[in-house]
């Protein structure tokens, strides 16, 4: 083998080794169209409208603030009220409450009871068990035994939008209040502010 052949072989091997080092193939079946699973927790900066990162940041801040205060001593019962959307966008604000409810339930510090939106399904099931005549006596859930909520969580989302030729600035404010149902007092309140600015 000549010296030139050896050098050429070494170069080819080197290129292959380096390319192998940089680009490892993944175990996927993929066609020409590029579809990828992404990080659901990544910062989403596609537009400055309300997005997944805003929802996650609001839920984290509110959950953290509620847990930090220690208001949930003795695992009290809590119910959710619908969140008022006072922005100009269509936003599924109940999604924010759903995330807060999930995080608080997983913390083990609180027990949630059916909200107004979830009540009809509960009533339907109770009626089915007690009035259909299909179930063994003693196995049915009794009517009139639901636990009422000590607290109610109420929220609202507002926004201020400012725009000129080159810049759009959106300011969101999410306010969450915890009411004592019996006394009607606000026992806890916090807010999360978000500013998003985009330039053309």
């Amino acid at each position, binding site marked *: *083998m000549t010296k030139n052949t*050896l*050098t050429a*072989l*070494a170069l080819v*091997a*080197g*290129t*292959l*080794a*380096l390319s*192998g*080092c940089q680009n490892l193939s993944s175990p996927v079946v993929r066609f020409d169209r590029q579809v990828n699973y992404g*990080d659901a*927790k*990544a*910062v989403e*900066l596609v537009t400055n409208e309300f997005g*997944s*990162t805003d929802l*996650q*940041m609001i839920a*984290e801040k509110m*959950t*953290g*603030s509620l*847990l*930090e*205060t*220690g208001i949930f*001593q003795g695992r009290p019962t809590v119910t959710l009220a619908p969140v008022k959307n006072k922005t100009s966008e269509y936003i599924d604000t109940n999604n924010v409450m759903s995330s807060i409810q999930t*995080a608080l339930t*997983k*913390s*083990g510090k609180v027990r949630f009871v059916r909200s107004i939106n979830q009540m009809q399904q509960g009533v339907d099931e109770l009626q089915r068990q007690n009035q259909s005549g299909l179930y063994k006596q003693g196995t049915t859930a009794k009517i009139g035994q639901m636990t009422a909520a000590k607290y109610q969580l109420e929220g609202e989302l507002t926004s201020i939008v400012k725009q000129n030729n080159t810049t759009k600035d959106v300011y969101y404010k999410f306010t969450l209040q915890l009411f004592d149902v019996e006394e009607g007092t606000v026992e806890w309140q916090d807010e999360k502010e978000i500013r998003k600015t985009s330039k053309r």
Partner: protein
Amino acid sequence: MRTRIALAAPALLCAALVAATAARAQLHDPATPPAVASKVALRGEANSIAVREMRIVRKNDILVVQADMANMGRTDRTVFYRFKWLDNAGNQVGDGESWKQMRVLGLGQQTVKSVAPTNAAVDLRLEMNVEPR
């Protein structure tokens, strides 16, 4: 023999590159105290962002952390960060926080805060990377 060396050289170069990248993976700013640096998982270079102080307290049975991020340079920086909570076995508690983006002005300082999702969290890591722009 010479052929073997010639073929092995690129592989060694590749290994050296990987090792060098790994060694450079955590380059904390000198203003980050070593005790704080042990709680920070920095991806890439710090680009003048130092975590000057980290305060961890247990409030109502839940860990709460605050960290001061200081920009030691005059150029504004964008930091991406999130806290990762760990239980006493070192496993992650909960699903993990969302990533947050934060602008730290030149020579400025920002405080970031997080609350553990449950009382099972006993330790934490601050995951972060700093954009050079």
